[in-house]
């Protein structure tokens, strides 16, 4: 079975700082992989490489068997055109720490936007689907509100619905609850839990150890651009083998 994400020896540098120093990561279809680690460990960068928001400097990165951002022909790599990259991204949903909803559009318009513009769906069809998705994230009564009129947790749920509207095969979550007030974290995690139950493949960069323990199939601890420890979340959280993992967990748990 083709893994949904297959990263081999990923290196990425920003100027003179090497952010990723040889990362290998495999996420099977339907699996939930949680990535934890101190800030600056490269976990967000890894996530952003998966949908080519950042380009890797070396290594190979495949999503659903296809190279991300490149085409291979005759043993040679060709950089993809921008339109091809856009096409690849349609199947990968991304949820950001700061939501990044479109402030000039209502919740419903936010969710309809990509199906209308990118998939060129008919307005009625896009609308029906958006209504259904907003209902699913528990915001049926908020569809005509602008993002500024919604709480952080509600905005993030709209952002999840917006990503789901493209029917992605893979969902990337970049610290989805880090910008939320503590009492709003639960409602977002509930939606993500539901997604995981329905078999969505997810890579989640998070600080929510409870979520990782309960929902994660795999826990990845990153530090200084490498994966330090990886395994079943319950085992890693209960009995970390590596010193750096122990030190990190003792600070956050």
């Amino acid at each position, binding site marked *: 079975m083709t893994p949904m994400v297959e990263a081999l020896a990923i290196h990425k540098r920003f100027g003179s700082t090497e952010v990723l120093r040889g990362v290998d990561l495999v996420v099977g279809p339907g699996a939930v992989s949680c990535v934890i680690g101190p800030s600056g460990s490269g976990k967000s960068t890894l996530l952003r490489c998966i*949908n080519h*928001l950042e380009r890797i400097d070396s290594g190979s990165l495949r999503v659903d068997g296809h190279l991300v951002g490149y085409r291979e022909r005759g043993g040679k790599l060709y950089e993809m055109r*921008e*339109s091809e990259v*856009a*096409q690849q*991204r*349609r199947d*990968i*949903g*991304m949820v*950001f720490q*700061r939501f*990044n*909803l*479109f*402030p*000039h*559009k*209502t919740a419903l318009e936010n969710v309809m*936007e*990509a199906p209308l*513009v*990118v998939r060129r769906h008919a307005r009625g069809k896009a609308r029906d689907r958006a209504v259904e998705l907003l209902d699913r994230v528990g915001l049926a009564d908020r569809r005509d509100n*602008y*993002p*500024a009129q919604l709480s952080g947790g509600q905005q993030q749920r709209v*952002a999840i619905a*917006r*990503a789901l509207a*493209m029917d992605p095969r893979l969902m990337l979550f970049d610290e989805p609850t880090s910008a939320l007030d503590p009492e709003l974290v639960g409602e977002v995690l509930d939606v993500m839990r539901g997604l995981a139950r329905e078999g969505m493949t997810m890579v989640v960069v998070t600080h929510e150890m409870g979520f990782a323990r309960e929902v994660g199939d795999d826990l990845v601890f990153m530090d200084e651009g490498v994966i330090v420890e990886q395994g079943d979340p319950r085992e890693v959280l209960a009995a970390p083998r590596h010193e750096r993992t122990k030190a990190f967990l003792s600070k956050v748990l």
Partner: protein
Amino acid sequence: MPERPPPLNAVPVRHPGRWVAVAVLAVLAAMLVHSVLTNDGFRWPVVGQYLFSGPVLNGLKNTLLLTVLSMVIGIVGGILLAIMRLSPNPILSWVAALYIWVFRGTPLIAQLLFWNFLSALYPRLSLGVPFGPELVSFDTNVLINQFAACLLGLGLNEAAYMAEIVRGGIASVDHGQTEAAGALGMSRAQTLRRIVLPQAMRVIIPPTGNETISMLKTSSLVVVIGYFELLTSVQRIYSTNFQTIPLLIVAALWYLALTSVLSVGQGFIERRYGRGLATGPPGPSLLGFLRREKATT
């Protein structure tokens, strides 16, 4: 209904300074109005006589036409230049920068004269294969008549200024918006048109209003190439009848009227693009200033 706690009973802060300022200003205003009405030099009957006269209205028509058309050229050109300037293609970016440098860096009067006297440099303009045969050819003076020279001069100059305004607006939009649109699979053009520009409009509109109001009056520079608009029309009249002050008042009243209409229009457009963004009223209202500030809920 639960019983409400009694309202706080406090003496509000008094603002005696405001009332003193109002009194001083009221006296000054009364003096001004009195002198304007009683000084015969203003010749209000002459103002009334010329306000709607044929030559003045003709000039007004040209002022409106020049302003609207040059602003259309300026805004469309400015958006294109700003997009070029921000393009990852270094050639496009460099060409736009060069254009902005030239058109902002030389006087508008010189540009107007240049377009008017283009025929001295190129008597004929033609379309054809580069360095090859011509397909069609025009006499420059026929193709670029006086009116066209005015539009080229005002519009192309304005485009350079608008380019910087639009660029500033685009830069003001959070980069996360572009990333979110990109992550959804939207192309750069779609992202610009549907996500970035509508948000940039909020920043672009106020200075564009400024530019339009300024263009109303800048268009009077077309006098250097012998064209006429509102100000030129009244100048022609007072140079023969010597009623300088009343005729300048005629022009001023029309400019004020046009500016008022534009300001209202600007407010309308600003509200349109302010959707979804919590924007309060632009400032304290005059009445609120005099009344005690009420605690708002």
